[in-house]
């Protein structure tokens, strides 16, 4: 009997999550999926900004504590990766940018004053905190947000766990962050449709994955119009203002974590700079620019 795809979905990390595994037995797949969902739940419980009992909340509550806080290896690795993202993007990708989100209220569609922005920016900057040797010192009024890192990491971690449980062909989708385990049986790649930020049900492109991961970043529905100007929810930590770059980008890489970091960095760059950076990165990607034109790099022409 040939293995057929078995689909499972659940809600975690504030997103729709989906796992597709090829196997003959649905019961066996269900057992595997339960363990995979547990790993997602573990990471959500540990790194959710919205949970009182999360370790991230404990880290954020330690802000200003002179003694700092001991962190485990996993958290240290996430900080190492976040610091690397910060350095590779010259400060654009910053997990401490949370203070800016507080003053930009996208529901009320209000533009804050420059004074408010300057105050908030004083509490932003990953280079202001120290996190090494499993110990973090978070300055007062600074906050960490692992958005753009943890969900991507979870997708990779789940894929790795699935491999260790014997899965050979599978797809993990955590709210648009994809990590695949091998190709589909028969060396058939997984086709991931990239939805368009401008049309509700439209697919703007398709990216084929044989291995690795795919992540997207975009302002999709989260933006507002104010006095005729479009304000994206993606805030540039260097200026404190919304970035005026690409509308959306989807990137494929060897890991979902790498794809996600690259997508976030691309979104924060100025439009023309972002296009050139993506072109030169060597990664397969699809993007939509501010004029709603679709471009791509590193893809086979058939896509």
């Amino acid at each position, binding site marked *: 009997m040939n293995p057929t795809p078995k689909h499972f979905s659940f809600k975690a990390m504030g997103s729709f999550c989906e796992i597709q595994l090829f196997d003959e037995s649905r019961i066996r797949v269900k*057992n595997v999926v339960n363990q995979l969902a547990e790993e997602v739940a573990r990471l959500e419980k540990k790194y959710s900004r919205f949970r009182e009992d999360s370790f991230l909340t404990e880290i954020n509550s330690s802000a200003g504590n002179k003694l700092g806080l001991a962190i485990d290896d996993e958290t240290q690795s996430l900080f190492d*990766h976040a610091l690397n993202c910060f350095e590779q993007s010259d400060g654009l990708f910053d997990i401490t940018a949370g203070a800016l989100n507080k003053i930009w209220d996208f529901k009320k569609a209000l533009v804050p004053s420059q004074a408010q922005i300057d105050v908030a920016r004083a509490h932003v900057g990953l280079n202001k905190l120290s996190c090494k040797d499993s110990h973090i010192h978070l300055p007062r009024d600074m906050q960490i947000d692992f958005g753009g890192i943890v969900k991507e990491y979870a997708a990779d971690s789940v894929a790795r766990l699935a491999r260790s449980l014997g899965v050979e062909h599978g797809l993990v989708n955590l709210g648009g962050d994809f990590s695949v385990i091998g190709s589909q049986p028969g060396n058939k790649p997984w086709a991931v449709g990239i939805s368009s930020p401008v049309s509700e049900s439209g697919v703007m492109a398709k990216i084929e994955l044989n291995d690795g991961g795919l992540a997207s970043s975009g302002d999709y529905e989260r933006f507002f119009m104010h006095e005729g100007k479009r304000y994206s929810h993606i805030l540039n930590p260097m200026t404190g203002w919304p970035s005026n770059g690409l509308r959306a980008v989807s990137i494929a890489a060897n890991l979902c974590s790498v794809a996600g*970091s690259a997508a976030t960095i691309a979104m924060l760059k100025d439009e023309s700079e972002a296009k050139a950076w993506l072109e030169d990165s060597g990664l397969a990607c699809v993007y939509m620019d501010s004029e709603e034109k679709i471009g791509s790099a590193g893809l086979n022409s058939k896509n």
Partner: protein
Amino acid sequence: MKDSASRNIIALSTTALALPGIALADAPPTQSTISYKLSNYQEDDLSRSETPFGDLERYDIDVHQFQLVSPLGRNMSLHVDANYESLSGASPWYTSRSLDGEPIVNLSGASGISDRRTELSIGSRYYLENGSFGGNIGYSEEDDYRAIYFGFNTEKHYNNDLTTVSAGLSYSSDKVFPTDAALFNRVEEDDKQSSSLFVSVSQIINQVSSFQSALSFTEQSGFLSDPYKLRDFRPDDKTQIAWSNSYRRFFVSANAALHVNYRYYHDDFGISSHTSDLSWHQNLGRTFQIVPTLRYYNQSAAEFFTNVDDFLNPISEYQSSDYRLSAFGAVSGGFSVIADMNSWKITLTAERYLANDKYSAYDVSLPSTALVKYNRISLGIDFRF
């Protein structure tokens, strides 16, 4: 520009690959495992021609092994091992010469021996970013033997986790107090100590193969003789060295792995030995694995080994007729069937072992008549939760 963007991506990969859920590095167990293994070890009985008097039945040993491995907080694991062995049968007491001059074995006691061994060991391991360290302490007790031991070891990963170096040391303090000492003029009580040191390097060669080499030294001192043998007098110091190598290779097309091991051993009693084994780990689907194993063992005799106890020799002169000190070779073949379901793993193993002086590549001037043949069957059950 081109260089810088692709350099950015490569740089991002380095920290992403180091994330514990992605990296293949050492990590504490995330689940607990309880294992139970029952083994039966049964030596073939001797024939009447080898043993004119007394029992023909040699050792029959049942071993029950329990193990619990459990995560302990974020970076630690706990290991608890408990073993229980029950032993019955007889072991060679002394050897003599038959009327036609051939050496014969005289087994101990008409009613044989029965003994129990209980062992408990507790250990813990602490996992760091690039390695781990751990220790254990244990206690073992028999009717006539008691040992207390402890060990410490550490391992560190280098070269993007492709190379692992580990080292460790252990110490054991043992006491021997033979039963019926007064009746048989045995030593009443004595002790011995062992200290061991090892270093090991393992290297992942590529995606499908790896190699490991380890060197260990053991120094034993104290009462190293067998108190139950009539004429057994050995030096009270022994230095052992062992060099072990293993190579593993996975064959993707066959969905199977080949394991090749070789071990060289030498001690200053004069014994050198070589052990080579070969096993093929064949996966059958996702659940089953079968493992055929072949082993060849070959050793030289201790300098003071004698196959016929010399009752005229002064007891101050080293001598022993223990078959384990003779020159011999042994071949064994085994077969395991492993079923790995999600939370359960069941392993069934059968092994046949044949020792014979004719299998030895070393010079066998004094063949032992007490060499063993045995069957070992074991059933192991692991439960993860």
